[in-house]
């Protein structure tokens, strides 16, 4: 497609209590843009996590992030060792970034 840049898309799910740790890694890798969705639930190795349960606070957060190949490599190698403490999941896929005036990648 015209006016697009090939990029990598990261989709990360961690517990809300790990979000700070995650954003520190993102900052360290000099990522320039990401999107966070809170109040997320799910099933994983730690069992069901339901953000609507008022007695047991278990909330996930989903982070979507697009960046260029080179930075993606860097990020993946930073994230992999950290996954032990973070839990959750990290998916990587290909995408195109539709070019506009803002450059936050």
């Amino acid at each position, binding site marked *: 497609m015209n006016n697009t840049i090939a990029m990598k898309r990261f989709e990360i799910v961690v517990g809300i209590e790990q979000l700070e740790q995650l954003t520190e890694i993102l900052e360290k890798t000099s990522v320039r843009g990401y999107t966070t969705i809170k109040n997320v639930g799910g099933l994983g190795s730690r069992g069901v996590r339901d953000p*609507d349960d*008022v*007695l*047991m*606070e278990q909330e996930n957060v989903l982070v979507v992030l697009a960046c260029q190949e080179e930075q993606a490599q860097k990020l993946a190698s930073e994230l992999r060792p950290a996954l032990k403490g973070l839990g959750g999941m990290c998916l990587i896929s290909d995408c195109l970034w539709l070019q506009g005036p803002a450059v936050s990648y």
Partner: protein
Amino acid sequence: MATIQPVVFFFVAGVLAGVIKSDLKIPEALYKSMSLFLLIAIGFKGGVSMAKYEIMEVLPIALSMVVLSALVPLTAYPILRFVGKFTQADAGAISAHYGSVSAVTFAVGVAFLSSIDQPSEGYMVLIMALMEIPALVTGTVLARAGAGGEKTQWGHLMHEILTGTSLYLLVVGVLIGYYAGIVKLVSPLDKMFMDLFMGVLAFFLLEMGLLAASRLKAVMSKGLFIVAFGILFPLTAGLFGNYLGWIFGLSEGGTMLLGVLYASCSYIAAPAAMRIAVPDADPAMSIGASLGVTFPFNIFVGVPIYWEMAKYFHGIAV
């Protein structure tokens, strides 16, 4: 015999709504707002009536009762571990819940006393606020002693306990209530924190009924033992609390409230703390027992019984 408080039927209404699968839902923000309100209001009320005492005089007694409350989890643990066959982690975590307290159960006890016009010591609320500390610490030690695994995050745990919302707001309420009592400016604040207390409690109990209903399945899975424990243990702990209250020379009302504190069981502060201190314990089990069995038992049956106990002990005194 004293009549059952209308307010506790809101709990029944909540349970029933859960059982018949009504679409009734309490918005999460309302639930959380009401928790904050109740904590501040309970503290405030206690603080206002503490303004009538010499604090320094009562402090040693109050602290003794706090420290002695560590006996509650220490008693619960072997029963859970060896009779109930729970894992060390679960037995320790449940002990911490039963050693800790439920501010709502305490509130129902206070409402009971005020409906029969019985006074009580204002500093009971301070005891309640502080009782979490020995219970959670003891429960954690029991759950982890010699267990290996990851190191207990004591720093993190103590921070969680000491800065946790429930302890913090109770203390804030006490301090501001105490100040308001001293400077005689209780008035416009009491319109909210005292007059509306029972109405908010009604709503809160409705939600707690819904929550209890949603936990019944977890309780059933463990069967008879957890039901028996959830009823017999608070009775014993309540008896012990009453005995201590009487020994320490509390009023009849205060004696009964100490019984309620020892008998009651946490389902808010303790789960949050245990998640950090004993992550391998199953929170469903302790919350189920606490909210599904002990809480309803205490507000319907326990409170009047603890009152009879208090009267019995004070009868001896005479």
